[in-house]
């Protein structure tokens, strides 16, 4: 006897649903428990970021980039200032570069901690989520110490930083790293090798290499599918070429390469690599140097355009800036890594059970603020 096909039912998950990580509506066609088609509807958080940027000056864009990906604001700032500095041909000094890398990597840890914690929460593990948030809080404290803000920083400026790091920042960061490294092992122990989580995530939502590449998926999601591609290594910006670190790639330890477990585990491995980078950056940070040294008096880039990409915790973030020589951008386009990650949802999510769809969505680590912009 073949499979009995029942009547399909259309079910909306979201926009107000805790598992959709924001205001996202997933329209799923279900046949019983099996999902046959997923259509993500987004735009609930659309704030006209790109159009709005055509009305504000270049320095005023930075607070708006914060609000795109609110879980990794530092990295969003970083991408924008790297693009602007390339367009204006500004070279910032060593101290600024080191501080920027430190901040971006701390932000990567914070973002990945939230992602891994929430992934556990989606699958029913509550304790690791609290542990992850507790450690993330320490990182936010470090940011607060530096620039006063805990979530939306406006810290990196074109040609420098808003503030120098405070006295004792380096020491407290070392202290945090010493405290944090055993905690990563703890998080991995309780979460990654837990039988329940492995059963729920291994072999689920497999994203093969070719699918990931053809959909333009980047970041940890791409690396989990077995592609060794990290802009910090393959197309180094800032001073990433000086640091020793590995690019963790999904190996399919518990199941197939590119399954939910791999996507989750790659992030834990990346946290360790970020810790390594921060230690090196702090050790080689020059003691003196003015963070306002290369701030331009007027932010007025020459006529021209630039496309520059950086590696945020979610992947390849690109800024396309078209300048007409005025202090206001003529056009600003952002390539969002989470958008492409969401677009692959139907391809890898169809055919799985309803509860697995939420696991797949959680493992993709999307941030709706960045998708809708």
């Amino acid at each position, binding site marked *: 006897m073949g499979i009995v096909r029942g009547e399909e039912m259309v079910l909306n998950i979201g926009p107000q649903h805790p598992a959709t990580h924001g205001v996202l509506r997933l329209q799923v066609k279900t046949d019983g428990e099996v999902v046959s088609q997923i259509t993500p509807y987004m735009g609930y958080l659309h704030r006209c970021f790109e159009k709005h940027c055509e009305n504000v000056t270049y320095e005023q864009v*930075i*607070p708006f980039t914060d609000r795109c990906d609110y879980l990794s604001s530092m990295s969003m700032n970083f991408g924008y200032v790297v693009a602007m500095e390339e367009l204006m041909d500004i070279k910032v000094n060593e101290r600024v570069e080191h501080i920027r890398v430190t901040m971006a990597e701390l932000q990567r840890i914070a973002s990945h901690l939230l992602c891994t914690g929430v992934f556990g929460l989606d699958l029913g593990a509550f304790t690791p989520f609290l542990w992850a948030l507790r450690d993330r809080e320490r990182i936010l404290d470090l940011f607060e110490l530096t620039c*006063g803000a805990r979530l939306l920083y406006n810290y990196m400026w074109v040609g420098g930083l*808003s*503030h120098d790091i405070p006295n*004792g920042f380096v020491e407290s960061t070392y202290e945090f790293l010493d405290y944090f490294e055993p905690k990563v092992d703890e998080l991995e*122990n*309780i979460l990654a090798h837990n*039988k329940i989580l492995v059963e729920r995530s291994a072999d689920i939502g497999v994203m093969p290499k070719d699918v990931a590449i053809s959909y333009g998926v980047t970041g940890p999601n791409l690396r989990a599918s077995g592609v060794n591609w990290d802009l910090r290594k393959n197309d180094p910006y800032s001073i990433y070429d000086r640091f020793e670190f590995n690019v963790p790639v999904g190996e399919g330890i518990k199941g197939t390469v590119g399954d939910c477990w791999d996507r989750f585990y790659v992030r834990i491995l990346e946290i360790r690599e970020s810790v390594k980078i921060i230690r090196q950056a702090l050790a080689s940070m020059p003691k003196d140097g003015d963070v306002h040294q290369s701030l331009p008096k007027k932010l007025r880039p020459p006529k021209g355009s630039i496309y520059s990409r950086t590696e945020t915790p979610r992947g390849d973030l690109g800024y396309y800036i078209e300048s007409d020589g005025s202090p206001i951008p003529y056009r600003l386009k952002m390539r969002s890594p989470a958008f492409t990650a969401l677009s692959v949802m139907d391809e890898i999510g169809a055919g799985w059970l309803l509860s697995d769809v939420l696991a797949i969505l959680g493992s993709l680590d999307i941030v709706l603020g960045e998708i809708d912009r």
Partner: protein
Amino acid sequence: MVKYFADIYNSTTAILSGMYLTINHLFRAKKGIATLQYPEERWPRPERTIGFEHGSYNVIRSRLHVDIDDCIGCLKCERACPVDCIKIETEKSPNRGEDIKDINHIGITSNSTKKALVVTRFDIDMSECCYCNLCTYPCPEECIFMTGGPNESRHSIDYEFSEPERTDLIYHFSKPGTKDGLQEMLNNREAEA
């Protein structure tokens, strides 16, 4: 068959190691406790010991405040604001740097700049503010700042402000009646002359 027993072994060890961790945490809870009973306890604010001389730079993000006696009405903060939550209107002062007693206008700022303008309106809508701090940097008189931080002596930190009405979040910093008072005074002067 092997898989059956391996599964049982794996599940048991996973559960046991998880339980070991959590029980361990239970007995060490006092040391690493992370929750604070918020209204009674608060997170300590980090000390703002900044490594370079910056005096005017405000590190904290809280409610904006303006020392209106120091404001020269240059509109730099209004232009810097990305969300246009600062609204300033100015009138020309009859004489540069002159004190106008009728409307409580002080002609010279604490940085001894002579004011050429009278600020008749200085409104900040804190419900629109995005706390980006961009308005505080360009101020030549350092009169707009976020409360707390290096200005703690002048204004203690205020980040827990809430109001029942949205309009209550619009803060008026200019002295009330400045516009009418100035007009009246100019009319009087004209009549005298």
